[in-house]
């Protein structure tokens, strides 16, 4: 009997060790690919096997994660993730070959493990003059801010040489805000006389507060479209009277529906007012305005870019948003981050001083990272697809008086009654039962409309019982009585 027990115990321990080893090796591959984008070296694999045999695989992987986040490939990876977030062309140059202030700043935050807030609050820039006599010369972008500035031509007679510039401005300078006041950001989000920097403001809201605004405003009528055209290429027969009449009419930005975004975009856009080919000598005041998820109105006057960076980085929405970026990058958007778990991760983000290397090391130590990858079920895929579509609805329903509920947060409501009501409302306003023939939403005059595929996806999701992210249906019988 004792022999049988010992044998069983030995078999159990043996199978357990085998399972742990497999788990650790999979973790090692995931860790290396996730942080460096390459498989682990044979030396790392051998070291893990040894550590496993000695019962210290966990601590070995923890130490390895720390070394991986100091690998130049990690800097490349983070840089490309930030590039994708900012929506600039991903730069594939090596980490030490950057020339632009934006690239140098992002890389320096990552490699030096500076606070993530520096993306918005940094006041130091390093850049190189152009080697193309006719190309954009980034140092000139900061030239008006630095009284001691000397152009490349003043320094060198031979203009083909590139000159390195380092700009250091005081922390309280109101004219600068991290990557926002770089030429790459400004050139990515160009402005026009009509746009008035709103595109730049929208990018700031999207990147730093996860507030993606979608143009859902009523389409301009033919007259105002003509007006836009005429402002750019004035028609010789157009009279001032016509212009005034056209401006007083159905112009995007002046209607109540448009204000669901413009009340945020316009005041923030004003901060960019004095910036064109070069940054303005003076800061331009504006305001940070938005509504929180619990419908509290935020309205903070800004003296300039400096306040923009300082104030945004103090917002709860900023913490939540930045943590959600990291979560998506290293854990995955298919694993929901809500409630207590979200609070815990945000607390960890703050605890490590919002330093990217430390925070990523924390994330990869979490059980969600270590979990064996699972293929999503069809129901889960549907849940992810519809919530992506519903985020467009949120861009209006999240603000002003049109708020209904967070359409992208599943499940809807605390109890079955609330879920039934929510799905019933969706069926009604989208007219699901008649293929959207008499749909109330989105409004027929909205620029944004559901595509056939999007409608079909929502219909399929409702017919499947409107499953949440775990694949569990929220309602029975596809929402039908």
């Amino acid at each position, binding site marked *: 009997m004792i022999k049988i027990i010992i044998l069983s115990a030995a078999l159990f321990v043996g199978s357990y060790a085998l399972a742990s080893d497999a788990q650790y090796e999979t973790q090692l591959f995931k860790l290396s690919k996730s942080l460096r*984008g390459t498989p682990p070296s044979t030396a790392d694999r051998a070291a893990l096997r040894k550590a496993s045999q000695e019962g210290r695989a966990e601590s070995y992987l923890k130490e390895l994660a720390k070394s991986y986040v100091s690998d130049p490939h990690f800097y490349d990876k983070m840089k490309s993730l930030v590039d994708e977030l900012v929506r600039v062309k991903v730069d594939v140059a090596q980490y030490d070959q950057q020339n632009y202030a934006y690239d140098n700043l992002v890389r320096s935050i990552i490699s030096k493990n500076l606070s993530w807030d520096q993306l918005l609050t940094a006041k130091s820039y390093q850049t190189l003059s152009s080697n193309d006599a006719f190309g954009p010369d980034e140092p000139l972008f900061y030239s008006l801010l630095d009284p001691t500035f000397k152009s490349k031509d003043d320094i060198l007679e031979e203009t083909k040489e590139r000159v390195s510039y380092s700009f250091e401005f005081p922390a309280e300078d109101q004219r600068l805000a991290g990557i926002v006041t770089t030429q790459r950001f400004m050139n990515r989000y160009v402005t026009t006389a009509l746009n008035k920097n709103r595109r730049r403001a929208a990018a700031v809201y999207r990147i730093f507060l996860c507030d993606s605004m979608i143009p859902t405003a009523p389409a301009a009528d033919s007259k105002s479209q003509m007006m836009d055209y005429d402002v750019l290429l004035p028609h010789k027969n157009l009279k001032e009277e016509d212009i005034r009449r056209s401006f007083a009419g159905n112009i995007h930005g002046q209607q109540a529906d448009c204000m669901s975004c413009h009340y945020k975009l316009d005041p923030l856009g004003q901060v960019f007012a004095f910036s064109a080919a070069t940054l303005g000598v003076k800061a331009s005041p504006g305001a940070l305005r938005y509504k929180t998820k619990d419908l509290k109105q935020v309205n903070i006057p800004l003296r300039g870019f400096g306040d923009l960076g300082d104030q945004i980085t103090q917002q709860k929405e900023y913490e939540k948003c930045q943590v959600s970026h990291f979560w998506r990058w290293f854990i995955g958007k298919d694993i929901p981050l809500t409630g207590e778990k979200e609070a815990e991760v945000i607390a960890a983000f703050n605890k490590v001083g919002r330093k990217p290397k430390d925070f990523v090391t924390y994330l990869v130590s979490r059980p969600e990272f270590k979990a064996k990858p699972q*293929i999503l079920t069809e129901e889960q895929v549907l849940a992810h697809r519809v919530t992506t579509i519903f985020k467009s609805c949120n861009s209006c329903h999240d603000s002003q008086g049109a708020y209904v509920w967070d359409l992208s947060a599943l499940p809807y409501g605390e109890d079955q009654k609330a879920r039934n009501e929510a799905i019933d409302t969706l069926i009604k306003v989208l007219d699901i039962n008649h293929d959207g023939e008499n749909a109330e939403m989105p409004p027929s005059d909205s620029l944004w409309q559901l595509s056939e595929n999007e409608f079909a996806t929502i219909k399929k999701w409702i017919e499947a019982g409107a499953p949440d992210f775990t694949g569990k249906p929220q309602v029975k019988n596809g929402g039908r009585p």
Partner: protein
Amino acid sequence: MKRISLVFILFWSSLSLASFEENSRRYLSVLEVKNTLGFYLPSVTNCNFEQGGGSALGMNSPLTGTPVSPSPTQATINWIVSCASSGLQYLPSAQGESSFYLLVGPEAKAIFQKEGHTPALFRKWSTLEKSLQKSIIRNMTELLLGSDHVINDFDLIAPDVLRERLFQGASKSSTVQDALSLIFINLALRDEFLSY
């Protein structure tokens, strides 16, 4: 190359299961795939992806912030094959020697070292002992995808089945170099290689 194309399509089925956006797995970026291929084949050259290949491999479009294609496309296959082939063609040269021995593994290395790596590459694959062929396949599978435990955790294919398919596919190769190329490309196109 035609033979390679035919065989790797058989293995492609695992990749088509996944999508860039909706799978719980995450994919290596195009730059990382290039780095990973270079990890085994330092001589990879034909890996330019700036003319659209990046988007096909899942890199986000700067315009929309999402990948152009929700899942790997034919362009993905073409790019990986082209990039890997550019490195594989250097195997017979002096600079390919260390890659060759890394790919074939210690058992084959002990045998091939006697005749030199270039003649070994031009040997007929069919002249190798079956056990040696299997040893090379086992080594390459473990090298590129990880041990059987890692492959099992992906839950896409049983490691034995994968190796048997590779063994069958490679049996039609004329030379050792052809066989190594075929095995390498097949492995490089798998989800276990491209994702984590």
